[in-house]
């Protein structure tokens, strides 16, 4: 089937079988390998992408559901020059170690701060609880998100969105 989607701001038509996992289509057909597979059953969150602005586990989404949708993957998070502020604070605070969970964590954190810009640390932990990290003990990631929250006025979080994320 043909599926029309907007991926990282670019309109695309994907010709594929509708039952295929979004994760596989992204990685194998579109070459967007920044989205990672950790468990294949929606537990670890490594394959998180934003579907119409909301985080989903792309291992659980049949690609046939995406007609007309807008997707953001990690490849679409940074601008061409500068990093998204969350990507920047993740590096500076040590929120990325082995890095395999990082694309999913970064996207989910972006969503969390857009959804609830004033979220407390405790609330941020709830919002991120679908993303497992085995390296950091989560502290540095929480600190990085709080730093992004504190240093970024609400507008700059929105400005930092990539063009296609409407």
């Amino acid at each position: 089937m043909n599926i029309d989607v907007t991926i990282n701001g670019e309109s695309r038509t994907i010709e594929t079988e509708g039952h295929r996992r979004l994760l596989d289509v992204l990685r194998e057909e579109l070459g967007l390998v920044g989205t990672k597979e950790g468990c294949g059953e929606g537990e670890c969150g490594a394959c998180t992408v934003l579907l119409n602005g909301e985080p989903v586990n792309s291992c659980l989404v049949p690609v046939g559901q995406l007609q007309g949708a807008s997707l953001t993957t990690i490849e679409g998070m940074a601008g061409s020059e500068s990093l998204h502020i969350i990507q920047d604070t993740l590096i500076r605070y040590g929120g990325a170690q082995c890095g395999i969970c990082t694309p999913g964590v970064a996207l989910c954190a972006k969503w969390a701060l857009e959804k609830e810009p004033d979220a407390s640390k405790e609330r941020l932990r709830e919002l991120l609880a679908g993303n497992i990290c085995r390296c950091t003990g989560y502290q540095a990631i929480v600190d990085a998100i709080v730093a992004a929250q504190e240093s970024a006025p609400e507008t700059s979080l929105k400005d930092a969105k990539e063009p296609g994320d409407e």
Partner: protein
Amino acid sequence: MVHSSKSGEEVTAKGSVSQSSVGKGLPRVDGDAKVRGTARYVDDLKLPNMHHGMTKRSAVPHGILKGIHKRDGFDWSQVVVVTAEDIPGRNTIVLIEEDQPALVAIGAPIRHHDEAVALVAAPSRELAHEALTHLELEVEEMPAVFTCEDALEAKVKVYGDDNILKTYLIEKGEGDIDAKLAACDHVIEGLYRTQAQEQMYIEPQGMIASWDEGRCHIVGSMQCPFYIQKAMCTLLGLDAEHLVVEQAVTGGGFGGKEEYPSMIAGHAALLAREAGVPVKLIYERDEDIAATTKRHPSVVRHRMGFDADGTIRAIDVDVLFDGGAYQTLTQVVLSRGVLHAAGPYKCENTRVRGRAAATNTPPHGAFRGFGAPQTTFAYERQTQKAAKLLGMSPFAFRELNMLRDGDSTATSQILEGSVGSEAVLSAVKEVAEAYALPADDENSSVRHGRGISFYFHGAGFTGSGEARLAGRATVALAVDGHFEVRSSSTDIGQGVQTMFTQIAATALGVEPDVVRVPSPATDRVPDSGPTVASRTCMVVGRVVNQASTALRERIEAWARENGFGDMPLRQAATAMAKVEGEIAETVQYAPPAGIVWDDEMYTGSAYPCYGWAACMVDVKVDLDTYEVTIDRCVHAVDVGKAINPVVVKGQIEGGTLQSLGWALWEDVIYHDGKVANDRMTNCIVPTFSDAPEMHTIIVEEPFASGPYGAKGVGEIPMDGPCVAAVGAVEDALSSLARSEGFDVLPVSPEAIQRAMRLES
């Protein structure tokens, strides 16, 4: 020197990095690629015509393989099948011994569930998966043994005649230990059990193998490229020249990618050899959990005798580990377990006996802490009980008995320098005094508790291990004027590339951005030894420092001779590279003087130095649900010198949560030797919501032979938070539950319920 960092504070010194970048929180050199998603892990790599491999595994825990049959009615034309008959070299994955086969041969024993029996490769994963279901194993099942205690009876033989993989004995003091204990005012005896633990790196294991004119190239997720090379040479009948192993960006290891990757590399290489095309072999999560190594389950009996004033007089420990079906690394893990079993306490009369038994479960292996967490749990439960019995504060009991500079360990090693025992304990004590535990409201269903633990961890290989390894590292001035650190130390997330960049840049006197630390490949780097044992910074970092210094001196000498004496080193180096081409300095590790170890008697300098740590955990326990919430975790760790405080803090916090997870939630459940919870849904690890806000305290008691004073930090954070948490739960429920209920891990709500029931 003590740096305290509460959550939310940035420990980094902001601003530009000076020429001495050691001690600064330099952002990770691989950070940009990781946050952009451009870092390439093994599953992100594609080679032309690459096929996908999968593994056919045994469905019984013990038996004889009678046959492997390809079912009719399936088109096998596109599928390659490999069995033991196709192995060109010796059918073994060699590390310490050659007891473990790469593939079970027909007529040979299957010794555990999910053991590799045959391999398939096909152009797509889907087809490979379908082929697996059409491959049938004919097996004659045999009786099996599943616990290390049952294995000692040797009714079922898994390894040799007695199932004993290894024994150790450590003795200190004259005379009979039972008599020494009998003479004490008090003796506490406990039996402690710990469970298997899954490393749960988020990137599953995987390898790609390809062949080119008799040369095999392996790329994948790994900790130890030269371990794989050695194992592959034996399996494939090749010399090292024809076997190149390269690390891809690796998504976590924690010990789980120390020895098992050799198995996967071997399988991928065999398939690629047979198929004539490159083969990628990536484990599914359930396969990874079911088949790869875990932390050894343990049974530890600990007896501690002390005077009425709390002075410890005698310690007797009996350590039993479940090794699983093959030797793998078990004897080394057990060694570290027994060497830490008496704890960081002075005691003139000590006996530690250690045994590891083989069972029909998948082999247990390396996991951060490497045997020490199991024995730490036992000795710190004992210490908690002793302080309680005497009515002493947990700090006072430890202050009275702790090892200090100049004291003698259980192996009669005299500690000389870099002993942070007092500093770590007093750092935690200070926080404990500042934050009182909330008082319990009798009408509420919540009870609060606090637990303390204190422990040490030997850094580097045991005894003469580092001298035998003789690890080497190279620092080169490349033709483009950049500097390159070449070692076999792998960055598996712990920050090796960043830390080596800082060490080399500081020794060379250049900015960090002109130093590169590429991922290792066996044809491009010297063998620095494996990336294990908290040795990378302390041992390989020292060699990198020495090689960098030698290179700097060579460049300075060249500059003086050629009239560039006034030029900054970086410019002189660029000029030299243009004239002389690449220049490299390689240094081999020389252990510090005075390391004397007797491998027969197990006495002497077990480790060149130790890390020291103390932890305090505050919990609340819900009396209705027995749910435990961690309210506070304070962890002070003596690391010698934090080369990069952000990286060090990350190591401490990551290890802390793995330890807390092992204490309260994580479990691997076996049904007749098969992992029953082989998914992330039921083999759980802590989430953002489970983890506490952490208060991490970095203590620096410099180690004279480490680079800038640094010693190991990777493993010690895994050793002790667990028992602090368990002590906290016991403290919360003090009069409501029996103490023995907290001697078995994990202390899950179900375990707490059982402990409560015992009381009623």
